[in-house]
């Protein structure tokens, strides 16, 4: 009979991978890929670049705005974009989706952020579909089942499961426990929850036990790979225009 487990020992699990290229190596043609970030904050730029370099094809990307997948448009990897901002929030920034959309190369589904977030969460939570009023009387409701609850007309929205999530954490350990930094948290936790395989780029890898257990935002169960990556150059962040950033 085996002796009782020694307490004080942490699980012998190691989710750390050495490079961003290795981290994205399993992403396949046609995959549904969620990408964290809201604006530049929380955007996993190094993973996105590594994926763009792999030149996979026919991805469905799910992200806040083209900021998260402009590199992937450039690499010809995107077949469909599911995004609340089908242009940069600032309309004066050239929209990388416009041309491929008008040419029919990229299909675009534009939807309210909240519907997107709830659809991702539903996938994470084993909820195949839910009703909500947001989007009723708009293009968002077109072709969708409708139903009133009390006086509230609603649309039926379906879960949106991801094959992969690319996310950006601040610190992570080898169990996959993550914390974020200020508003760089944003969509990263929900992307992590919704994906079959979640890949996190972090500023710093720390020892198991260093994170305050009360303040871990994404527990390791939702994270499958952790990779340390350099922060992006600040002009990627501030310029807003990703093409320019590539030259740095």
């Amino acid at each position, binding site marked *: 009979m085996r002796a009782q487990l020694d307490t004080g020992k942490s699980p012998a699990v190691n989710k750390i991978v050495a490079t961003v290229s290795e981290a994205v190596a399993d992403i396949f043609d046609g995959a549904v890929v969620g990408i964290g970030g*809201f*604006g530049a904050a929380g955007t996993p730029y190094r993973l996105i670049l590594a994926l763009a370099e792999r030149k996979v094809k026919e991805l469905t990307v799910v992200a806040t705005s083209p900021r998260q997948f402009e590199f992937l448009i450039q690499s010809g990897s995107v077949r469909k974009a599911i995004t609340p901002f089908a242009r940069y*929030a600032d309309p004066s920034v050239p929209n990388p989706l416009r041309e491929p959309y008008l040419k029919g190369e990229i299909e675009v589904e*534009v939807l309210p952020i909240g519907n997107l977030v709830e659809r991702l969460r539903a996938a994470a939570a084993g909820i195949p579909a839910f009703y909500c009023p*947001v989007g009723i*009387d708009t293009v968002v409701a077109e072709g969708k089942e409708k139903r009133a609850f009390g006086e509230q007309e609603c649309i039926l929205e379906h879960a949106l499961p991801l094959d992969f999530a690319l996310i950006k954490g601040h610190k992570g350990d080898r169990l996959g426990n993550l914390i974020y930094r200020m508003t760089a948290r944003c969509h990263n936790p929900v992307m992590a929850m919704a994906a079959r395989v979640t890949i996190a780029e972090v500023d710093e890898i720390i020892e198991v036990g260093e994170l305050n257990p009360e303040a871990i935002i994404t527990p390791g169960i939702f994270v499958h790979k952790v990779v340390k990556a350099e922060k992006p150059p600040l002009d990627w962040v501030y310029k807003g225009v990703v093409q320019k950033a590539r030259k740095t």
Partner: protein
Amino acid sequence: MEGLAKDLICLRAAKELKPGMYVNLGIGLPTQVANFTPQGVILHSENGVLGFGPIASEEQMDWELVNAGAQPITLLPGISFFHSIDAFVMMRGRHLDVAILGTYQVSETGDLANWRMEGEALGAIGGSMDLAYGAKRIIVICEHTDRNGKPRIVMQCTLPLTAKGVVNTIITSLCVIEITKKGLELRELAPGISTDYVQQLTEPKLIISQDLKEMEF
């Protein structure tokens, strides 16, 4: 066009906010209201922050501390960060007292059209529909007319809708209008602006409030 500078529109809008209110300032002009909110107003942004301060100066900037419009913001004591799931619970579940939104068009019955511009192939819904349906009160702020001088306050929105019948108050460069069951009630005029001038630049017929007064700041 005559009327208020953008800062004054924001200043007037900020007067609608009282200590203890939870408020979201939409992307664009409304984010500037953050610079004028009275102490005690608690600002929410959909990227996951509650209780932040004014827009950051060049020296205060931290690219991981921004509002939903990606503008750098500042910390206040009591600020909290959360993920977008909870941020949108706050918006969609009627937890916010007020949302101040920009717009391209707003109709006589409070329909809002603020996510796709004239002639745009795609657009940016962002969190606008979530706020429009979810906040307890919707205040729209904008220039009274669009860049071509055409009225933004219209009989029927011609641009794609954000939400139907949700707007409560419109604050423009010319006036303050309350949307009532009877129609658009003109409540305040910007200094030096006449009722006739406003009506001329507004599609629906305005109801003149019995308490019509000049805007105060």
